[in-house]
């Protein structure tokens, strides 16, 4: 069996789809790969031209929504998602008409359901990002999403906070997105101490928000199970109202 290794990027994955399409290989991420002595490994160099050809082929068969689901499924980064996506890609190419709503098919259903999970996480980030204003006027937020959703939330935050500079930093994957009032860029940075970098009014507004949160609760209706269902504990560490 051939194992195609790629550099974890989406373009790299599409290149690997191109290279492995006619063979019976599997696709794996280079950095997460455990060597297998019975298999031949083939390193795939990311090639934008090949990636574009695969993408163009998919674009002919899938709707905009279908393409979005495909990309979202890739961003889920769940283990061996490449296998399901490769099978899905084959299923799409082998059929004349669009199969993206054939939910009776396992691969189609997998992509639809995984994209939904990723979408849910994207939506949670749109909800649970908490900006703190720094002294130099940047609204900054740390996040640790389950899936790699930063690429999916750029538009939402750019449209919404068009008149303020902001940065959202994914602590798990160690990269962030930064808006400089014109465009959004990907950034990397060293995370060291955070004391003393915040604007002086920042603490006041966090305190006001905490006061509001307390005031809005109705004690005689307390329902912790419902709270946890909507807002699992792993998100709490970045929420001032729950700190």
């Amino acid at each position: 069996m051939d194992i195609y290794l790629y550099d974890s990027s989406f373009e790299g994955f599409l290149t690997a789809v191109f290279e492995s399409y006619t063979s019976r290989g599997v696709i794996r991420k280079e950095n997460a790969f455990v060597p297998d002595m019975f298999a031949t490994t083939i390193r795939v160099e990311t090639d934008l031209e090949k990636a574009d050809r695969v993408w163009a082929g998919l674009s002919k068969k899938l709707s905009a929504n279908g393409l979005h689901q495909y990309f979202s499924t890739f961003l889920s980064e769940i283990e061996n998602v490449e296998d399901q996506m490769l099978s899905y890609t084959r299923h799409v190419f082998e059929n004349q008409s669009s199969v993206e709503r054939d939910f009776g098919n396992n691969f189609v259903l997998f992509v639809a359901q995984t994209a939904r999970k990723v979408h849910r996480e994207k939506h949670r980030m749109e909800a649970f990002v908490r900006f703190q204003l720094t002294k130099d006027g940047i609204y900054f937020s740390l996040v640790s999403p389950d899936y790699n959703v930063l690429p999916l939330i750029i538009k939402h935050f750019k449209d919404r906070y068009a008149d303020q500079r902001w940065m959202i930093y994914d602590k798990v994957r160690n990269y962030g997105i930064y808006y400089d009032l014109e465009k959004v860029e990907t950034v990397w940075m060293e995370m060291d101490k955070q004391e003393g970098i915040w604007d002086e009014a920042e603490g006041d507004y966090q305190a006001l928000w905490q006061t509001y949160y307390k005031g809005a609760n109705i004690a005689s209706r307390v329902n912790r199970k419902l709270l946890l269902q909507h807002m699992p504990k792993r998100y709490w560490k970045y929420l001032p109202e729950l700190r």
Partner: protein
Amino acid sequence: MRIYEIVSVSGRNDFFLCMHRLPPSLVLLNNLVFLVKAIVMHERVQEKLSILADAAKYDVSCASSGSDRKNTNKGLGNAHPGMGICHSYTPDGRCVSLLKILLTNHCIYDCAYCVSRKSNDIKRAAFTVQEVVDLTINFYRRNYIEGLFLSSGIFRDPDYTMERLVRIAKDLRTIHKFNGYIHLKAIPGASDELMQEAGMYADRLSVNLELPTEEGLKLLAPEKKRADMIQPMNYLKNEIIRLDDERKVLKKVPTFVPAGQSTQVIVGAGKETDKDIVHLAARFYHQFQLKRVYYSGYVPISNDARLPGLGHQVPMMRENRLYQADWLMRFYGFKAQELLDDANPHLDTEIDPKLSWALRNLHLFPVDINIADKMLIARVPGIGMNSVNKIIAARSFSALGWDQLQQMGVQLNRAKYFITCRKGPIEKKDFTSEQIRRQILNQSHSKYLKLHSPQLSLF
């Protein structure tokens, strides 16, 4: 440096500029005074916020969806594409989407069910216009909220109150280029001109019906009249229709309450039946084209003999069943009459209204999932609208079997009594309604059973 930092506390650049002209020693003194002022101001706003958020929380609406206000002026905020976001949840499990506050809890009315009623001995407070604007903008910039939900006690008279609510919305939209969501309470009795102006700046307006029946209103809020509440609703409905018509022929028609109007009724304060409530909701959905009717389980706040006393449980299960019925009417094609009639004036508390309806109408089942009409499949217990859409899409490729239905998210433990598919029925036996009901109840773990267990164990 010091000056810069202090100034940034309140963001008053004008003050910063004029301070530069003072001699250094005076600047220092002024700084100190200003710093103290800032701290005192912060504490005052804290106290007001605590009082006026507490008083506003009984209004249940927190929707921030349905508007299409785009950020086209490179300003702050975007209510497009109209999807709501819950930014937090309070320990009662309710969504926090908007900064929901009263402008003031001073009120000239004395409604028995309301915490802010005139005769109640509580702390009173009032925000200034600037304070509300400042809180909204700064919370929004930090991604705490989707926007503002502003209501108020009635001080002096309805027009005077409404005018202030409109002022805040106007300032946010015009001075601060704010495109986030704004929900204003329409104060019954305020003039049409003010309603018109409110509609220009707000995404949603709502008038609370307060109590489901007029008898209830007479008993608990004798100063209020149903007619006063209907009047602004009617005005808004007509304006929305008129401007929609204009939009068809004219290019530039100003937005007007793009997220429509909603209302709220209090449940369990009076003696109304579920039928009264659901039929009222159906009538208002139809008559005033409301986007939502909210049901607010009465939270006991006094020992007034006309009301359930302190210590009474909030009717949360009833409220939940009402919302389920409401959903069935809005999305599943049910008529109020089908859910509740004189023979069944209350919703079943043990099982949900859809299952309850299906058990009363067993003669319509089983339906064949592979050929039945979409809206008939939507009526099957255990199949939600998401599954319905998947089924309709998938069955055009190949006939569906049980495994596939399960994978799509259909709850077969309920649905199996009501459907057949490619492989025929699961349940070959003909059960009576009562048998199905028992079987489903035995295998389900209602969250409400748990909710009531401490209470049951007392006996």
